[in-house]
Structures are given as structure tokens and as C-alpha cells.
């Protein structure tokens, strides 16, 4: 029971810490329109809550958080892959797509720092 509670606390803590950054990653790094970014953010949080309860997912805040950031970047990247024939004009978005989601995720994690608790 206590374990379940602490898992939920961990998930909430990560979401509250990373929420603004997730939105900014989607809108600024990937150029996703605001309303679409809000919808994707909700889906990301729902997915992340379930992910945290899958087997094979560590309990540590740092690793859990990196899963959320990694999926956010994949979602941003796939957003453009699905828009056949459309190319972003924004240089920052072009850079994100050129570097790929793994590199962008690493950059974002660096911005957040090593200890997720410090960012609360």
C-alpha cells in the first residue's frame, strides 16, 4: 500500500516538475501548436502514469523522469513525421528534427539537472 502511494507521489512529483518543460519542448523544440501540445501533454501524462506501473520500469525519480522526457521528444518528432510534405520553417524545430529525439531528450534532462527533487 505504502509502495503504491509512494509510486503515485513520485509520478505526481515528476509531472508537476516537468509539466512546463514538456509543454515548452512540444511547442518550442518541435513547433507543435499550443492546443495540440496541451492534448499531447495530457496523453503523455496518462501514458506515463501507466508506464510507471509496468514491470521493468525502475522506481527512481531520475529514471522515471527520463522516460517521460524521452517519450515527449519521440512524440514531437513523430508529430512532424506524420505531416507528409510539410516542413518546419522554424530553425529550432529543424535542429530538433535533424538531431533526433534521443539527443534532444539528453539536452532537456541536462536542463533539469541530476536530482529531480531539486526541481520541485
Amino acid at each position, binding site marked *: 500500500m505504502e509502495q503504491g*502511494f509512494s509510486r*503515485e*507521489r513520485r*509520478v*505526481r512529483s515528476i*509531472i508537476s516538475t516537468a509539466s512546463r518543460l514538456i509543454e515548452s519542448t512540444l511547442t518550442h523544440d518541435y513547433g507543435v501548436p499550443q492546443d495540440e501540445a496541451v492534448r499531447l501533454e*495530457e*496523453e503523455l*501524462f*496518462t*501514458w*506515463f*502514469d*501507466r*508506464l510507471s*506501473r*509496468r*514491470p*521493468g*520500469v*525502475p*522506481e*527512481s525519480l531520475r*529514471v522515471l523522469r527520463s*522516460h517521460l522526457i*524521452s*517519450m515527449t521528444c*519521440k*512524440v514531437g518528432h513523430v508529430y512532424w513525421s506524420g505531416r507528409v510534405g510539410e516542413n518546419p520553417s522554424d530553425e529550432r524545430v529543424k535542429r530538433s528534427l535533424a538531431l533526433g529525439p534521443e539527443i534532444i531528450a539528453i539536452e532537456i534532462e541536462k536542463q533539469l539537472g541530476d536530482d529531480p527533487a531539486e526541481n520541485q
Partner: protein
Amino acid sequence: MTASLIYFPGKGQFLSPEEGRKAAESVLATPLEQRRERCVELHLEDPEQLLCVSTLLWRLGEIEPARAFREAEFFYSFIEVPRRPIGVFDERDYYLGEFALIAGGVARILSKRADAKRWFDLAESHFVLAHNASAHIARLAYQRLALTLEERDFESVIQRTPRWVEAFTRLDLPEDALKCRFLEATALKETGRLQDAKHGFHGIKQEAAQKRFERLEAMASENLFQMHAFLGEVAEAVAEAGQASTILARLNNRVSLAKLQLGVGYLMRSQGNLPESVKAFRNAQHQFSEIEMHADVAATHLVLADLLLDASQPAQAEWEIRAALPIVDSLKLVPEGIAALSLLRDSLRRRQIDRQALRSLNGYFEELGS
């Protein structure tokens, strides 16, 4: 329910965690043949429910493995055909991989090794497409390692295990790392390196207790019990059995409870207490039969036959062997198993049981279900 903070009520898309748990229990109580036509009412495509079902099926695998196998097979095929969109992002691939892994893992427990391999291959084909693939591939590697142990390729297990222990440690998955060490200790036990094995099980038990991995703690205790029993260390064996059975009963782990009972049989045998030994083996056999662990039922028949020969009861021993043979026939044996089986059959025809063939065949079976 604090999880409502991250569930989005009003969207009407997915069940909440609490709703998912209740729905999962309800769907597992619904007969398999009714589910497809009632799939909307039962929320069968809901990712929250599928997550809860997969958690329940891992537990069911230790209580009713045959049923858990049928359930995992059902959920896999339900998601796969017709192709259903499940949840968001990687969830379809993840659930397909997870149900295939459960089916394979439970098939392994049921000694259906060809089925287990097929399901593991299917799980791999889905997990490589899911998020966190490296962790899931490592979980799959654990199952394959356990299968190698059951194929009695002990040296290969001893050689490969440390690499996976390190992989799980680096993936920050300590419980899975301990499970790998468990396989290594079992392989050491099987190859007669008893002190190393004992040391290994003690270490696992201690670490599992510290980290509150109750199931692993109980299973380490169960193995220590078997080792003490084998070595005739009665007091230590009894103490370990007591600790293991308390936890296993609490977890309703029927597979391990049946194996514990088997260990009691060996302990009684080592003490020369034939009636109590036969009683314990029959109890274990009854429990294996209830949970459809047929290979273990057959193996126990062979152990009983050996015991009855010791007691100069060849007619009863012959009956035990004859009861085991149809089950043995239905299982796919490796060449050593086939050779021992053939020798045993010949000796039965001569009404003179070949003790060596009986023991070889029994040795082959002993670890099938562990």
C-alpha cells in the same frame, strides 16, 4: 484516489486505475468464449484494464498456471486479430509483448518448452517496438535463461547469468537481478557445487528480505530447505520450510507450495521415514495435479516408484511407472530422456524394473518444472 490527478476525468477515453482494477477482475471472471462478443461492455480494449489484467496474470501463473496460459493467449490474440488500436503511443506493442511474455513464462512452468520458445520469440518481436525496449528484452532474456536451466544446460546458465545480473543492475532493476542470481544458484546446486549454491541462496534470501521482495525471499528459503533436506540437516531444513511456507501461503503461491511439499518428501526419505515420505510425495503430486503441472505429476510418480522399490514393493512401483508413462509420452524429451524412457519401457516388459533408467528419467524430470 490520488491517481485521479493524472487521470483526466471527463475525457471518457480510458478507465481510471480503480475502474481498471475492478474491470480486470470482472473480465477474468467472464468465460473466455463470451468475451469477444461482449468486448465493448467489458472494456477489453482499455489500456488501464489491460495493465491490471497483465499484473493479475503474472500472479495467476503461480496459482493456476494452466489457466494463466489460456488467459494470456486470449488477450494476445484479442489485441492482435483484428488489429486493434490500444491506448496511446507504444501501448499496443507493449501489451502484445507482455501477454506473449506471460504466455511463454507460464508455458515454461508447465514444461511446454516448444510453446514457451514460440511465445518468447513473439514477445521479442513486439518489445523491440515498445518504449523501454532494453528492459523488456532483458526480462525476456531472464525467461530464456530459466528455460535453459530447465533444459539442464547448467554450464550455459552459470556462464551467462553474471552478464544479465550486471545488465539488470545497470538498468536499476534489483529484483530481476536477484532472480538471475537465483537461476545461477540453482545451476550450482544441480552440478553438485552445494556450498556455492547454499552461499548463493543465503545471499539472495538476505538481500530479498532487505528489499522486501517477499516472493524471492520465500523461494530462496524453499531452496535452502531442499538443500538442507538433501544434506540430512533436519533442524535447518525444518526452520527454512516453516519460513517459506508462511510467506508462500500468504502469497497463495501454489506452485512453490507444491514444491515445498515435495521437499518434505525428500527430507522424510533421507530420515528413513518411508510412510511419511510417501504421504508427502502424494500430497505434492495431488497439488501439482490440481494446478495442471503434468510433468511434475509424472516426475513424482517416478520418485514414488523408486521409493517403493526401496521398500521392496515392486508391483506398486510398476504401477507408479505405468501411471507416469502416458504423461511422459505427451512431453517432448531431449535424447537423454528418450534413451532412459526406452530402457525403462524394456525393463517393464521384462517385469524387472531398470533402477538406473528410472533414476535417469527421474533426474531428467526433476528440474522440468522448477
